[in-house]
């Protein structure tokens, strides 16, 4: 099978749309609520999950034939936990402010259902390259939703995007304008509502998704 065959393309593209981990499988919602009040942590979290899913998929796929069946979940957890610790250390060293913002949620990637789901359902049965594509696809599928939610929450909640002021200062009530930031958007509950809206739109477009 060639590296970029049709099957591999589907492995990669599926989770971006028709098999999106958040919109269709409704996995990994917990962290989607917590880190999306602004765009930057949402992007970093999305990338971290993508990197960790891809590499843990590859590692598990490489050693899948040696893993003793009775402790396979433990082995998967150890691999994920090790990768998460490495990523968390790298974030602390190079993007300290973001790691403070993400706080416990980087550590909680270990328990992210998307990861365990992909390891158990895909990497245990497939080769490293397919597993890598599957990991990147699922990570990006998760990241897209996070970024979309973070985008809406930051622009409506703070009037900024990646800390740049988007809504002009003169439009605000305190400066004589008519606009106010929506404080509701900064609350975790709004992430849930936005994810629900996202799923609604996604399902209206793709009517053939199995419920």
């Amino acid at each position, binding site marked *: 099978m060639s590296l970029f065959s049709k099957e591999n393309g589907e492995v990669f593209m599926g989770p971006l749309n028709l098999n999106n981990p958040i919109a269709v499988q409704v996995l990994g919602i917990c962290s989607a609520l917590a880190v999306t*009040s602004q765009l930057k942590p949402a992007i970093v979290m999305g990338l971290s999950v993508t990197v960790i899913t891809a590499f843990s998929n590859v590692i598990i796929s490489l050693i899948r034939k040696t893993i003793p069946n*009775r*402790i396979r979940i433990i082995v998967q957890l150890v691999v994920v936990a090790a990768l998460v610790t490495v990523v968390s250390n790298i974030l602390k060293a190079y993007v300290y402010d973001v790691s403070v913002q993400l706080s416990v949620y980087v550590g909680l990637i270990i328990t992210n259902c998307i990861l365990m789901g992909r390891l158990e359902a895909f990497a245990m049965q497939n080769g490293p390259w397919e597993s890598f594509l599957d990991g990147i696809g699922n990570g990006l599928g998760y990241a897209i939703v996070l970024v979309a939610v973070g985008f809406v929450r930051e622009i409506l909640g703070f009037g900024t995007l990646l800390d740049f002021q988007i809504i002009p200062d003169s439009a605000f009530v305190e400066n004589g304008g008519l606009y106010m930031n929506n404080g509701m958007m900064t609350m975790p509950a709004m992430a849930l509502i936005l994810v629900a809206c996202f799923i609604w739109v996604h399902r209206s477009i793709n009517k053939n998704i199995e419920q």
Partner: protein
Amino acid sequence: MAKLNTNSNIYTIIYASVMVILVAGLLAVVSSVLKPTQDANVALDQKTQILASLNIRDLSNAEAEAKYNEVITEGELNSPTLKANVDGEEKLIVAVKGAGLWGPLWGWVSINKDGETIYGTFFNHESETAGLGARIKEQWFQDEFKNKKIYQDGKVALGVYKQGKAPSTLSADYYVDAVTGATLTSNGVNDMIQKCLTENQSAIEALKN
């Protein structure tokens, strides 16, 4: 070669042991390689927090480092009190530590040369409720403390009270309004300020001389 029985007990135990040793080694290496960079980040973060208590905010990392070295005249990052010189005026910075609703609170309170009034404050928290208790980290709350008085009859009177709930004997110079919906965190800030300012009373009084 005979096929390895990956389900035998011996294999499972050896597999688990080797895996744990490999992973432990890897994590130890990563952690010790990145430790110096991380420590530098933590120290720099603390410096920007101390500068914020002197009303010097929104600096880039490089600016903060330079400004800190310029302004702070005495004391280390972890000392209970530091001295600073802002535009020719001496300020005393008292480190405050306390407990919020969910976890530790900390911050710095800078005091004017008169030993009576607050110059600026900075508070931070580990895990207070986002949008409620976490708002003690925001500038509008910290700015409320500016120019408030500390002592009444030789005791620390400065406090944080729910709107309209301050004791009637206390003039408005001595308290700030609590964060709405975050009574327990606000009480934590109140207790932390009173405890730490009382503990450092001698240093604050020494300012007047």
